[in-house]
């Protein structure tokens, strides 16, 4: 428990007590921890304070602030303030007058807002003043004066432009296209003037261009303009990118601005292109679906702008006027690559003039490879499109950067570029994946993203040889893709074979890098994690032995890190996780007791950390370990121990869920815990505690949770499977006492299992197992409720499948186990003569169990079952043989009955075994 949690708990507990008892209680509980004692006592002293002090603090400041916000300064320097013209995030603009005897002049005064007078903004103000002072053009609002108020707030006095924003001016007067072009040429002249003074405006947009009633356009707001020769590029870059002070307007931004690349006159050419587009079409060229970074990237850097003529609405004549030259002019200004636009604003303006006068223009239609990447289809939802763009951008740039590196020339530049790319790769590829993984309902889209990403990675892998850093990142990318493809613990696509292939690629890369004494700790960390994950997924694909190997190698990697990292909870957690997965693999192999030992080791290792400082995830991890331990305990036959363990896991998980109620994975864990608890209390196929009521409650919760999760994550294989399990567990719980109620659930489970088995890949033996289990359960319910024909048919089908898969994957004991159970059940439904054949078959299958004591409770059950039935098909066996078998049967059933005293079936079977032995 961390410090704050202890403070909180102790405080709450003490606050419950009468005041007189608190001090001693806290003293005792704090046990000499002075800091803890101090905090809790401090809080207790104020536990009964009313909140009036908080209210007053907020209230008084609000009143004062509101009064202040309202106050219009009467005078700024020699200027009398008339009214407010506007306000932005950082400053206010006032209309003011200067009266010198006969001369009266209206001015606009721009003042930094109180509270916003940070060094950064004040610098920006000074910067704008310097810039404006050097400009003198009829189409640029003039700087008249400037200074600072007595309070120290800087201000600028500007020519007051009484006018309308450019776009509104044109629309309101319904100006014909020729006049709009003339206005635009004047704007260009102003920008060109600034460029000649080596100033780039950087924020050109219709709102920054006002047109006076006389029809003269005036350019405003050089607030973020840049001196091309200035050396304070870094500070300006910071000014532009700092959160909250972000000056860039995305609607009129250029690709280079979005990408943080150098800004040149070409940037203004681009923005002017956008302004022209809007003047001509009355539509914005860039339209964003959402206001996110990824969307800005997609729209501004990737998507081609629709030709201006196509954007013209309801005006066929205008459309014809725009089509051709104007389309080409706009397109040339709006090229993504700054180097391929008009070389200057003057060139741009001249082309417009030539067009107006009917001369040929420079701009030509785009003829060569300038098309958007084909895989960015327009119809995908933004998240997928953004993902694809991020990936294509990243991968494309990585390739380019590598080539640039090899070329040797401009080495420093290439190196810088390479580092940028690396950053991009890490941020975008991974953030996008993570973002999608948490979005329900994106299963199909994820599949498309993954296919594309893999293609890129494979081609990059070839080029990246000898680049250790990049190799590490490639391995990480392969791993992420593997996660998306099929890690069952994540929002996977269920493509387990593909996932394993990606993981193996990553492991191969990392193992190569780790194969030296001074291996990078990061490589060892990645390798340790990846071996663990891969082993985990291997279990799902039925390869438990290899899963254990992966865990061994994972533990080796982490142990190698110990000398450097010392006593480190992360290292121990990772090692514990590897123990845990080893335990799962052992469980698959039937070694229940060994599995319990591994899981207990994992739980112990983590519990040792609890009194010390833990990670935020530690409790969740502990819950997972307990979950697995409980499962192993069930198989080892320790049912009440298992229930205790599972309940503890569930309580921890629920506490976590309370903090984050929407967490998909926590809810899925609880679904799974409820499934296990239902199973331990009353699953027809297993040894259980015989508490039908509890079993039904847990099973119902499990099904409900699965249905809810399936709705939210529609389409994912995982959610389909979860729902199948939910139906199956409830059906199996009801099967024993109320087979009729079990029918609908088992029907649903079977339908789902059938669909799964059809779609599953070759290695998905587990799908066949699920199918046969569903067939058997429904078959038994049908027979019990009178539909013998279909019931027996299903049970026979189940036996056929179990036979096949137990031969196919002999090392997974449970398939054989299933085969024995299903065969005996089928025998139970038959008249004595046919039954004998089935019983014999089951007995033979059980002979394949390893010699010695049963390794787990399921083997024990199956052995007990075949021994109980032995006398039924060996009525003529010699007395000594009969006696030996009967005694063994009693011994086996005694064991089972001891483990589950309330289990009726075990007790009745024990009684039957005893009768047979007499």
């Amino acid at each position, binding site marked *: 428990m961390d410090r*704050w949690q202890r403070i909180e708990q102790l405080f*709450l507990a003490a606050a419950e007590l009468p005041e007189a008892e608190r001090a001693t209680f806290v003293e005792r509980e704090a046990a000499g921890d002075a800091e803890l004692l101090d905090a809790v006592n401090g809080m207790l002293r*104020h*536990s009964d304070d009313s909140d009036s002090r908080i209210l007053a603090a907020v209230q008084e*400041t609000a009143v004062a602030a509101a009064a202040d*916000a309202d106050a219009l300064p009467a005078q700024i320097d020699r200027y009398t303030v008339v009214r407010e013209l506007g306000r932005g995030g950082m400053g206010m603009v006032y209309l003011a007058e200067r009266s010198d005897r006969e001369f009266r002049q209206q001015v606009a005064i721009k003042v930094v807002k109180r509270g916003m007078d940070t060094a950064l903004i004040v610098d920006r103000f000074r910067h704008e003043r310097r810039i404006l002072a050097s400009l003198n053009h009829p189409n640029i609002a003039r700087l008249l004066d400037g200074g600072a108020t007595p309070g120290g707030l800087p201000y600028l006095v500007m020519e007051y432009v009484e006018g309308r924003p450019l776009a509104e001016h044109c629309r309101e007067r319904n100006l014909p296209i020729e006049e709009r072009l003339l206005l635009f040429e004047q704007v260009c002249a102003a920008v060109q003037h600034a460029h000649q003074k080596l100033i780039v405006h950087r924020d050109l947009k219709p709102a920054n261009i006002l047109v006076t009633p006389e029809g003269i356009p005036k350019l405003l707001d050089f607030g973020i303009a840049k001196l091309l020769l200035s050396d304070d590029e870094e500070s300006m870059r910071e000014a532009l990118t700092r959160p909250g002070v972000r000056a860039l307007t995305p609607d009129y931004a250029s690709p280079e601005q979005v990408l943080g690349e150098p800004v040149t006159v070409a940037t203004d050419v681009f923005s002017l292109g956008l302004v022209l587009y809007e003047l001509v079409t009355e539509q914005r060229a860039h339209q964003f679906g959402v206001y996110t970074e990824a969307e800005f990237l997609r729209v501004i850097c990737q998507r081609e702008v629709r030709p201006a003529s196509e954007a013209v609405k309801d005006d066929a004549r205008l459309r014809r006027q725009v089509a051709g030259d104007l389309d080409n002019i706009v397109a040339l200004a709006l090229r993504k690559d700054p180097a391929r636009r008009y070389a200057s604003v003057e060139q741009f303006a001249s082309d417009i003039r030539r067009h107006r006068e009917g001369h040929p223009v420079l701009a030509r239609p785009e003829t060569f490879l300038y098309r958007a990447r084909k895989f960015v289809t327009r119809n995908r939802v933004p998240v997928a499109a953004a993902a694809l763009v991020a990936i294509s951008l990243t991968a494309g740039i990585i390739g380019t950067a590598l080539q640039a590196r090899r070329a040797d020339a401009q080495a420093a530049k290439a190196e810088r570029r390479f580092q940028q790319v690396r950053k991009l790769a890490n941020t975008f590829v991974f953030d996008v994946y993570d973002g999608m993984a948490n979005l329900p309902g994106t299963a199909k889209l994820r599949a498309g993203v993954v296919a594309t990403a893999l293609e890129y990675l494979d081609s990059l892998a070839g080029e990246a040889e000898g680049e250790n850093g990049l190799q590490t990142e490639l391995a990480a990318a392969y791993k992420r893709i593997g996660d998306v493809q099929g890690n069952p613990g994540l929002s996977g696509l269920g493509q387990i074979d593909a996932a394993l292939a990606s993981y193996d690629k990553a492991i191969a890369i990392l193992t190569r890098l780790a194969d030296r004494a001074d291996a990078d700790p990061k490589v060892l960390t990645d390798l340790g994690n990846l071996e663990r994950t891969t082993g985990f997924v291997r279990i799902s694909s039925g390869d438990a032995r290899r899963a254990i190997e992966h865990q061994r190698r994972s533990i080796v990697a982490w142990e190698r890190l110990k000398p450097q990292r010392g006593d480190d909870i992360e290292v121990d957690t990772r090692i514990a996780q590897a123990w845990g997965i080893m335990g799962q693999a052992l469980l698959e192999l039937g070694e229940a007791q060994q599995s319990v030992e591994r899981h207990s080791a994992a739980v112990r290792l983590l519990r040792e950390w609890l009194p010390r400082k833990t990670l935020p995830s530690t409790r969740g991890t502990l819950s997972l370990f307990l979950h697995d331990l409980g499962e192993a305990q069930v198989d080892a036959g320790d049912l009440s121990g298992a229930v205790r363990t599972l309940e503890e896991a569930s309580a921890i998980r629920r506490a976590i869920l309370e903090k984050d109620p929407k967490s998909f994975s926590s809810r899925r864990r609880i679904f799974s815990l409820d499934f296990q608890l239902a199973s331990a209390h009353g699953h027809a196929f297993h040894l259980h505690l015989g508490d039908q009521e509890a079993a039904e409650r847990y099973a119902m919760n499990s099904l409900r949770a699965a249905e809810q999760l399936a709705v939210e994550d529609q389409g994912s294989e995982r959610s389909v499977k979860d729902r199948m399990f939910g139906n199956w567990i409830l059906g199996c719980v009801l099967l024993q006492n109320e087979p009729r109620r079990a029918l609908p659930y088992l029907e649903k489970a079977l339908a789902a299992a059938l669909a799964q088995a059809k779609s599953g890949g070759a290695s998905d033996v587990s799908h066949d197992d699920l199918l046969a289990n569903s067939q058997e359960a429904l078959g038994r319910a049908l027979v019990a409720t009178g539909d013998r024909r279909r019931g027996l048919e299903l049970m026979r089908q189940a036996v056929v499948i179990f036979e096949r898969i137990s031969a196919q994957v002999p090392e997974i004991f449970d398939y054989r186990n299933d085969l024995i159970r299903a065969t005996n059940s089928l025998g139970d439904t038959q008249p004595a003569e046919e039954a004998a054949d089935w019983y014999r078959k089951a007995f033979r299958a059980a002979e394949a169990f390893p010699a010695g004591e049963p390794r787990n409770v399921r083997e024990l059950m199956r052995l007990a079952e075949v021994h109980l039935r032995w006398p039924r098909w060996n009525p003529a066996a010699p007395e000594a043989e009969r006696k030996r078998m009967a005694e063994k049967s009693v011994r086996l059933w005694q064991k089972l009955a001891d483990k589950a005293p309330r289990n009726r079936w075990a007790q009745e079977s024990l009684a039957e075994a005893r009768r047979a032995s007499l």
Partner: protein
Amino acid sequence: MEQHITRLLGEWRQGSQAALDTLLPLVYDELHRIASRQMARERSGHTLQATALVNEAWIRMAQAANLELNDRTHFLAVAARVMRQILVQYARSHNSEKRGAGVPRLELIEAFDAGGRGGPGDCDLLALDQAMAKLAAEDERKSRIVELKYFGGLSIEEIAEVVGVAVITVRRDLQVAHAFLHWQMSGGAARE
């Protein structure tokens, strides 16, 4: 811009930081506009309340942008944050102005001490803000709940909805937060 608000709120709810960054200045300006108007109307009797202001901002922006009723709590949550920023900014500049005007620091501190608490109005707000920051470092949710209640005027039930916890959890969090904040505002471990 106002037609974007519904969308921005939706995106922010789904975790887009960019959406929040776009929303904040909008709400900021709206709050300022309302504050100015209210002050003009009620210049004599200062009945203006920060939380009422936030609510009025909601009503006006809801009308202007056709917001749905179920956007309300999330809007208020944004507004609460903005309100806190505005007030803290104000209190800070006010404070530094006083210092800048030549009041020696020592005197200022002594004046606070004599009063037996953190200081008058806006200084207490800074103390509250600092205490909330400390609380957030320990327990982000509790600090956020305080923000929603005192800067946004959300009811306990509304807070429970925005934060996504049970009402009883909100109450318990507030109990702990109150004690912690008052303790901190009274000097915390250092002073007592």
